[in-house]
C-alpha cells in the first residue's frame, strides 16, 4: 500500500502535469508575443530572452487588428444579447408550460448541435451570398445565434425548472401577469444559468473561426480571422500572430472573471438545495 505522503505527492504531481499540459500553449503564446523573430525561430527554443513589445506596437498600429477586435465585439455582444433575449423566454416556456410538440421541439434544439459545422459551411455560404449578406455583421450574428440559442435554452430551461412552481403560483395569485412572473421571478432567480449561458455564448462567438473565415472578407473580419490572416504570404510573422492571440484572449478572460461568481454557482447548480 502507498503511504499517505507518497499518495499526496503523486496526486500533486499529476495535477501539476495536467496544469502544465493545459497551460503550456497559453504560456508559449504569451511569451512568444514578447520575443523578436530571431529568438522565436531559435532552435533549441529560447527560455530566457530579452522581452520586446514591438509586436504589440505593430498590431496597435495595424488598423486591421483593432478593427477586427471591434468587429468581434459587435458580433459577440450582439449574439450574446440576442441569444439571452430570445432564449430565456423560450426556456421559461419549456420549463413551465405543457404544449403539443414540446418534446419534439426539445429534440430539435439538441439536433441542431449534432451536425458538424463544416457540413453546413457551404450551404450557409451560398445562402448568405444569394441574400447579399456576405461580409456583414448580421450574417455572423445570425449564424452564431443558431449555435448559441440551443445552449441558452438548455441551460436556462434546466435552471428555471429548479425554481419551485409555488413561487410562480404565489406571484400569479398576487396579481402578477405572465411577463411579470418571468421578469421578476424567473430571470432574477435563474441568473446563474443565464450568466453561464451568456458566457458560453460570448466565448463561442468570440472564438469562432470557421464561419467567420467563410462568410467575411475585408470589412467584417473578426479577431481570429485577423490572427490567421497573417499566415498568408512568404513569411510567418509569429510574434505578431502570438501578440494578436494574446490580445484576443484578454476580453474573454476579463468577461469571464467578471461573471465567474455566477458561473461557479451556475455550474454547481442543483448540487445542493
Amino acid at each position: 500500500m502507498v503511504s499517505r505522503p507518497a499518495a499526496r505527492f503523486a496526486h500533486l504531481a499529476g495535477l501539476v502535469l495536467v496544469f502544465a499540459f493545459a497551460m503550456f500553449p497559453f504560456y508559449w503564446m504569451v511569451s512568444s508575443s514578447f520575443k523578436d523573430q530571431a529568438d522565436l525561430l531559435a532552435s533549441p527554443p529560447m527560455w530566457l530572452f530579452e522581452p520586446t513589445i514591438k509586436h504589440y506596437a505593430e498590431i496597435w498600429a495595424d488598423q486591421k487588428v483593432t478593427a477586427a477586435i471591434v468587429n468581434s465585439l459587435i458580433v459577440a455582444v450582439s449574439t450574446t444579447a440576442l441569444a439571452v433575449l430570445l432564449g430565456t423566454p423560450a426556456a421559461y416556456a419549456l420549463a413551465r408550460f405543457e404544449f403539443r410538440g414540446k418534446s419534439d421541439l426539445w429534440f430539435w434544439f439538441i439536433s441542431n448541435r449534432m451536425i458538424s459545422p463544416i457540413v453546413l459551411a457551404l450551404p450557409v455560404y451560398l445562402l448568405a451570398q444569394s441574400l447579399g449578406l456576405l461580409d456583414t455583421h448580421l450574417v455572423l450574428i445570425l449564424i452564431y445565434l443558431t449555435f448559441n440559442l440551443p445552449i441558452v435554452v438548455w441551460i436556462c430551461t434546466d435552471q428555471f425548472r429548479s425554481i419551485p412552481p409555488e413561487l410562480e403560483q404565489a406571484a400569479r395569485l398576487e396579481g402578477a401577469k405572465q411577463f411579470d412572473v418571468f421578469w421578476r421571478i424567473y430571470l432574477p432567480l435563474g441568473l446563474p444559468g443565464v450568466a453561464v449561458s451568456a458566457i458560453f455564448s460570448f466565448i463561442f462567438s468570440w472564438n469562432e473561426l470557421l464561419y467567420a473565415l467563410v462568410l467575411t472578407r475585408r470589412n467584417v473580419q473578426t479577431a481570429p480571422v485577423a490572427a490567421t490572416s497573417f499566415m498568408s504570404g512568404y513569411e510567418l510573422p509569429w510574434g505578431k500572430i502570438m501578440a494578436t492571440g494574446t490580445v484576443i484572449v484578454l476580453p474573454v478572460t476579463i468577461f469571464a472573471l467578471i461573471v465567474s461568481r455566477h458561473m461557479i454557482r451556475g455550474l454547481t447548480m442543483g448540487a445542493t438545495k
Partner: protein
Amino acid sequence: MSFLKLEKIVKRFGDATVIDHVDITAERGEFVVFVGPSGCGKSTLLRMVAGLEEVSEGDIYLDGANVTDTEPASRQVSMVFQSYALFPHMSVHDNISFGLRMAKTPREEIDRRVAEAARILQIENLLQRKPRQLSGGQRQRVAIGRAIVRNPKLFLFDEPLSNLDAELRSQMRVEIARLHRDLGVTMVYVTHDQVEAMTLADRIVVLRAGKVEQIGSPADLYERPDNIFVAGFIGSPKMNFLKASVAAVNGGAVTVRHPALADDLTLPTRHAPTVQPGEDVVLGLRPEHLSVGDGGAARLALRGEFAESLGATSQLYAQTGNGETLILQVPGRRSLAAGEDIRAGFDPAQAYLFDGAGRAI
C-alpha cells in the same frame, strides 16, 4: 347566497377522479377547514378555489360571482403555501408588497399597508431581511403578511403549519385564530391535522378519496359523526371500535351484544334503525369516555397490555377477549401490568353505533 360556494365540483387527472362531486359553502367571515388523510384531494380543492387548478366540472362562486374560469389574479384571494413560497431574492418588505406593487398602488399607500401588516404580525424589525435570514416561524409570518396586505376577499391556507416544530405550530395556530378574529375575513384552511381543524374551524369539511364525508362544526363532528371514518378521524386518541352484533331492535333503540360487555347494551338511535337482529354492527367508544373501575352504566371486561403516561393523563392499552385493542384515557399517572384484568366503564349515552356499511345509526 353563501359567500363561497363550491357546486358539484369534479376534478380529474386523466382517468383518475380526485374530486368527486363536492358541494361546500362558506359564509362571510367563516373559518372553514378542509381536513382528511393525505391524498384525499383537500389541497387540490383549495387550489381550484385559488384558480391554480382547473375545474373539470362544476362551478365556484365567490361573493356572488361565478369565478370558475376567472384568472387567479382576478379572484382577489390570497394563499399561504405550505412551503411559504416567499420570493428568495426579495426583502421581506418587497415580498409583502409584491401584490400591491403589481396592482400599481401608490408608494405611500404601500408603505403604510406594509407597516400595518408588519405591526400586526410583529415583524417590523425584519422588513429589510431576505427570507433565507429568517427562521421558519418568521417566514410563516411574512407569508401571512403577504396575504393580508392586499385585503383579499378570501384567505386560503395550504397546510401552513406543517413545516414548523410542535411548539411553534401551536403558537402560530393561536395567532392564525387571533388574526381571523381581528380581521373578520373568510378563511379556508387545509390540514391533515385534526387538532388544527378542531381548534381553528367554525366548520370542518372532512374529505376522503375526493368525497365529502361530513361537514359540520367541530362539536358536531365530535359528538355526532355521520360515519365510522369521521368518528375515527376526529378525536385523539382515536375512537375505539368493537365488532358487536345486534341482539334486538326496539323502536328507536338497538340492543347490541359483545363478549367483553357485561350485559347487553341498549342504545338510542339517531334515525329509525335500519339494522336487523343478528346483523353485525360496530360499537364506537372514545378513549376519554372510558373509565377504569365500576363507574358508568355499562362495563367492559378487559385484559391490560401496557400504559403510557402523558403526565396529566395516562393512556391504557387493553384487549378484549377476542383480541380487539382498546385505548382508555384516564386522569393522572396509572400503571398497568401486562395481563392484568381491568374493568372499564362508560356511559351508554356516549357510545356510538355504526352499521355494517359504516354509517352512524
